[in-house]
């Protein structure tokens, strides 16, 4: 019983060590990466929006055309629910698709 618990503890420790670098490196990359989404830089915002649009919408279907802004606002809300897309991604996508 004791050796089983020991094996289990070692397994959890090994899993933790394997997973940790993924989170750490993601955080480090984010810290190293320049902040491109400045609210004062419309070009950077548009690029970020395009990236989020391609990454999120392309998960399920071909990239759609741009629709009029009021339609995009509805589609945005629909996709936020349907595809569980984050609030930040949806805001950037809406901005990109309505400019």
């Amino acid at each position, binding site marked *: 019983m004791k050796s089983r618990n020991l094996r289990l503890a070692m397994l959890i420790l090994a899993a933790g060590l394997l997973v940790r670098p993924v989170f750490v490196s993601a955080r480090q990359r984010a810290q190293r990466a320049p902040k491109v989404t400045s609210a004062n830089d419309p070009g950077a*915002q548009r690029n970020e929006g395009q990236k989020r649009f391609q990454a999120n919408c392309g998960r399920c279907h071909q990239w759609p055309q741009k629709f009029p802004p009021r339609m995009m606002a509805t589609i945005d809300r629909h996709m936020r629910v349907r595809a569980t897309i984050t609030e930040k991604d949806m805001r950037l996508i809406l*901005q990109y698709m309505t400019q």
Partner: protein
Amino acid sequence: MEDKEFSGRCDSEIPAAFVLAAREGTTNLLGLLRLIAAGVALCLAPALYGQSQTDTQTNGTQSISPVPILSAGVAYNSFFNGGTHNVHPLVSPVVLIPFRQNWLVESRDTFEINLAPVPGMSGYKGALKKEVDYLQLDYIANRYLTATAGRFLTPFDVYNERLYPVWIRDLQTDPLILPISTGPSGAGTGAMVRGGFDATPGIEINYATYFSTLSTDTPFDSQRMAGMRAGIFLPGPRVEFGGSFQHLLQDDRTNAFGFHGAWQPPSLPLDVRAEYANSHEGSGYWVESAYRLSQVPVQHDVLRHVQVVGRMQRYFTGTVPDDRLPSVNTSLFEFGLNYYFRDDLRLVSSYGRQFAPQGGNMNIWNIGMTYRFVLPVGHGST
């Protein structure tokens, strides 16, 4: 589900089908119309109220007032299953009604007919199938949580919820494991909590947890069940993976689980997707890859519209038979070729080879068209 038999010739089966259905199935059609009217009234009441309220949403620089939308996926498919010809037209309208700042009523219905030749006759025969895929009220409470009530697509794996519409799917045939743990008609009736949020920069988490009650009233039939799905999306490498769990709260009270994964490499027009499902009804998996030939250097003007698709899948029978699933262990390999005229209009085709004992080996051919339109109901631009 209410079915109405009718007959019609192949060259004009669609108008003939609806005319005959209208003549012979007046009672059923009246029932359906009453159902649609009730649904529309239910949808419009809060929308009309909400349109007078503050219902704008911001894109970061300006406020935009959302408008109700009518959309639909339309398909006309021709299948040859082991030498038997089937014609399968389908219309699937979607209604979206946003109101206030965080509310949305959304609905999707499906009207489809599977027309097959009648032995000894020259015509085709089939049944009109009507289904309410979902009719739900959503409230986006905050960045972490959206609450949903009504009839919703069961979030078990992701195909049923995200990839099912005819204008989205790369191959027109359903995966063999699709009916596993999605409930009758692929939907539940009850409540759901879901959301997606950033865990760290570069890692997004999404989840859906739900409870469905037993309903035997067609077309709102559902099982009593509870379950959840959780996934991780890495927007950098465009990788998503996750798992689903479900506990049936009726009959033999069994558990089911599944896994899903997807990868769209940023440098390639390639989609790789896979799902696995396991329940008392059976188990199995599918792996699909779709590649758009937009990077091929020759004949670019033509080939950039072409998509090649491959999918392999296996199904293993379980302890409880389900007539929506194969009755024997089955393997299916499919290859597809799609041509996109536009992002919303395409020609689809595929060939599949099925391997199954007891005479189940067969070729499956498909050719068809899919189309999707989106219309504003009201003023569509600011």
